[in-house]
């Protein structure tokens, strides 16, 4: 029997779930919960991620009937989870994170990078130079210190490995805006890790 590819896809499950098929809904939950948990940890914290996961799936359940079949289901799920993460961060009302701007690359008057090649290269060696747990903590701290817009774009594009076009759909901005935000985040995080490892941004 030939089954159309879309039949086994998320969109078909979502349509069945919206029609009241509990098994289809739970299949979607099982399919997505790992990704949503990991995303939530990166966008909030390991402590807050469970709340984000619960909230995300409750919202998906409640709003399934508004999901338009033409859109990509994963995009819709990522958008809900990203917004739930942001809401939770705001509810926590943490004091504003210290910006990472001091870790941007530095240039001389001619626009030439100031640091030496060896100092610039050191971010690549941060795994050998730092203890694994320390690196995990610092990497998360760097993500936390990014402005919201950069954090979301960076986490979705570079950590969850969505394409630029997919991130643009999730965040409802154009691809050039995604690239601009991700690039800025990369410069900041790269410079921060570089200094941690004893290099220069």
């Amino acid at each position, binding site marked *: 029997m030939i089954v159309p590819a879309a039949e086994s896809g998320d969109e078909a499950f979502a349509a069945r779930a919206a029609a009241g098929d509990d098994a289809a809904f739970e299949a979607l939950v099982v399919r997505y919960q790992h990704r949503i948990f990991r995303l939530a940890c990166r966008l909030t914290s*390991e402590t807050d991620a469970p709340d984000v996961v619960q909230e995300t799936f409750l919202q998906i359940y409640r709003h399934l009937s508004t999901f338009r079949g033409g859109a990509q289901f994963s995009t819709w799920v990522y958008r809900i989870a990203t917004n739930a993460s942001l809401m939770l961060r705001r509810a926590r009302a943490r004091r504003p994170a210290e910006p990472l701007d001091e870790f941007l690359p530095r240039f001389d008057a001619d626009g030439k990078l100031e640091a030496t090649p060896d100092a610039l290269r050191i971010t690549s060696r941060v795994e050998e130079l730092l203890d694994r747990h320390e690196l995990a903590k610092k*990497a998360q701290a760097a993500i936390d210190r990014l402005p919201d817009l950069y954090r979301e774009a960076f986490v979705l594009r570079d950590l969850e490995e969505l394409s630029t076009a997919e991130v643009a759909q999730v965040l409802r901005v154009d691809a050039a805006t995604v690239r601009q935000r991700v690039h800025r985040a*990369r410069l900041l995080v790269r410079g921060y890790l570089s200094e941690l490892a004893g290099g220069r941004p």
Partner: protein
Amino acid sequence: MKDIVCVSGIELLMEYMEGALASDVAAAIEAHVAACPRCEAFIASYREMPRIVRDATRIEIPAALEASVLAALRAARRAARRRDE
């Protein structure tokens, strides 16, 4: 077109990597990087960083949470159906 120096090349780096630049601009960046050990080192670490952060923040969902997600959803479903009846 103005010559590319480190600062202008780095500004365009992600667009370059994603093929979003006009071919003459991309060629000018390549020409600069070929002759600039600083940019070469910078770009290597810029490319490597996402993988490092991705690996450092990789985490598995706790089994207890998996179970409680489904339990909470079933409870919400039962509550919604009671309301509908």
